[in-house]
């Protein structure tokens, strides 16, 4: 999840949260900064990290709590998106993070970087899908804000603060996630030579497509430039959406798997490269990582 190491580094892989606390406590005591890593699927996402120790979260893995009727699930930060998808898919559900990148990535890294994907507008950004979490901050404190219920305003919202903080405030160890039922009908279409104005209106209109994604076809084995559209809902809803979509251009059906390709090749540039270090942001950092041992440099923070 984080920038490439600057120098050759030692790697530690804590197998429990207590072990993670020890790693951070040692790092504070010895002022040896940590580079925090998930599955290391996205090594060049930010600026280089000034650290010689890499902490991998991959051993904090597995689903600890899942009640399908509540549409909530808790898992370790090192759980892969593929594992999450498989467990929830068995109940016709998903946690529709579906971020840029692939499913070998970890849930922890997705939340830590708040990486959205092509369906975020419609199905929710990481900030909307995480209900609570457990984390170890830069003072080696174990913090567990939020909870497992879908609505909760108790206490100040550290869940929101840590989501998308790129491991610079705390190392996420457990995530409590909101799930949704998968749409009963889910189909995707490629439209080239589409009518841009109509597609724009369709995207904003009452049919609420899961995605209307402008893209080049070549990188996806398709012809020309066009739009990939994904429709989801009950049968009647999808049928009427499809009828409206017909008026937008020539449609060809495509397999849902095409979106895996989209997530890999169409990712926008990383927000880690454009971090606004406002006085307030510096104060946040100072409160949660006063020794500057969590991913220093990653967000372009000065030494």
């Amino acid at each position: 999840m984080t920038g490439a190491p600057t120098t050759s580094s030692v790697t530690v892989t804590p197998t429990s949260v207590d072990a993670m606390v020890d790693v951070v406590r040692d790092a504070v005591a010895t002022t040896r900064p940590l580079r925090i890593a998930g599955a290391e699927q996205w090594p060049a996402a930010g600026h280089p990290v000034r650290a010689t120790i890499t902490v991998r979260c991959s051993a904090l893995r597995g689903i600890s709590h899942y009640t399908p009727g509540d549409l909530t699930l808790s898992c370790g930060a090192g759980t892969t998106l593929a594992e999450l998808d498989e467990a929830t898919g068995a109940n016709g559900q998903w946690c529709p993070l579906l971020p840029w990148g692939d499913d070998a990535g970890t849930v922890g890294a997705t939340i830590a970087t708040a990486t959205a994907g092509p369906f975020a507008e419609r199905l929710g950004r990481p900030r909307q899908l995480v209900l609570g979490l457990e984390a170890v901050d830069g003072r080696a404190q174990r913090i567990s804000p939020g909870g497992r219920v879908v609505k909760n305003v108790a206490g100040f919202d550290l869940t929101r603060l840590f989501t998308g903080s790129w491991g610079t405030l705390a190392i996420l160890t457990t995530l409590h996630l909101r799930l949704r039922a998968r749409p009963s009908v889910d189909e995707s279409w490629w439209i080239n030579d589409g009518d841009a104005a109509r597609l724009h209106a369709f995207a904003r209109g009452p049919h609420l497509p899961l995605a209307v994604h402008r893209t080049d076809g070549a990188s996806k084995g398709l012809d020309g430039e066009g739009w990939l559209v994904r429709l989801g809902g009950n049968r009647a809803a999808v049928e009427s959406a499809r009828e409206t979509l017909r008026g937008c251009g020539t449609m060809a059906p495509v397999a849902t798997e095409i979106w895996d390709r989209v997530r890999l090749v169409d990712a926008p540039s990383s927000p880690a490269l454009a971090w606004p270090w406002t006085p307030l942001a510096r104060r946040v950092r100072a409160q949660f990582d006063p020794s500057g041992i969590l991913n220093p440099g990653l967000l372009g923070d000065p030494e």
Partner: protein
Amino acid sequence: MSSLAAALADVVGGAQVLARPATLHVYRSDALPGLRALPSLAVFPATPDELIGVIRVLAAHDAPFVARGAGTGLSGGALADGITLVGLHRMRRILALDPVARTATVEPGVVNATLTRAAAPHGLHYAPDPSSQAACTIGGNIAENAGGPHCLKYGVTLDHVVAATIVLPDGEVVTLDRGDEGGYDLLGAFVGSEGCFGVVVDVTVRLTPDPERIVTLLADFTSVDTAADATSQVVAAGIVPAALELMDAATIGAVESSVYAAGYPRDAAAVLLVEVDGAADGVEADVTHLTALLRDAGARGVRVAHDPADRARLWQGRKKAFGAMGRIAPHLVVQDAVVPRTRLAELLRTIEGIGVRHGVRVCNVFHAGDGNLHPNIPCDTDDPAEAARVHAAMSEIMTACIAAGGSITGEHGVGIDKLGYMDALFTPETLDAMCRLREVFDPGRRANPGKAVPVHACREWHAVPAGRRGVA
């Protein structure tokens, strides 16, 4: 006149500063009964510049303060005990409304329903719809991260806030956003901070297109258990209702005996109010599916309301349920807690038992789809014996919700009312981290002191300066 009052009067004019106890009386409570505290001063800025000026004067005097919107809060959050109250009801301009971008920028004193009315000609509305929407302000909604019946499908206040200008307690003005393009989610941290992080000067919110079709269903049940279990079945079936509300027999009785009578069957043990909305064809399919599903789940009858007048009537009973309960007794203690949806039936049974044991009458009317309970108790809080029984019952209810893996508040906030439950919900380290987040925004601890997070949990906060304790 104190030097503080004089300095404030220089900013807003003498008529907009109140200092005499008699004139301050209206501000001694919010909508939470049983808790009163008189501010020492009240000041009413009318413009962003006046508000910023007021906060700077307060900072210069090292004076603590409490922001107040409409005072409809249900956790005592807007009470100012011997400190300055900054009332925002005069800041009620809609600064911009962009129907193409579907956003509006408003001052904090704009009333929730006013914004929706302003958006209506463009086929848009402001989605978060607390039942108090006719009175509560957007600023208060931001501070509490308010919800409402339609938040089941559309999300709570946080999901609709794009950016905000905040005046920090030290007088600095900052613009916060969600960090989608880079940056910590400081707006996410601010929303729900209960007035402890600063004052909203203006806020840009998302507006939502009105759905093409809306259908409301009323399902009635002969047992609360069956009704509660039916909610899980609806959600598990993959239908995302716009709203899914449960009212029990006590609530139905109160509503049907009031001017808000909605035609709920008086002999039902519970009713579910279910709304589906969206593109027409999909909605009709959902209605067919829902009707069958609710019947299979044990509903005695399912009534489907398509026309707006019929729908409005069904909703009126729900939205005015608190008001209807108000007729039963002088006060209504409104509670707010959350449990996992699959445990609703069990918790409702537990709550019933608690009510019986303490000799209080619990009326349940709540956002069942989210598992967000509102066990309300009509009572007389001025009667000490009754107040004690109500308090004991409420504590047991909270303990049961926490034990079930839930939360002590889904939308009304902690305020003063729920400070005592925070230790049961969060570890000392977590509470300490919350205090540190507050330090980022308000190192002087002058904004709404003593609310939201118990001060004893703040490890590095040594002695709290005298006069800073608020009402806690």
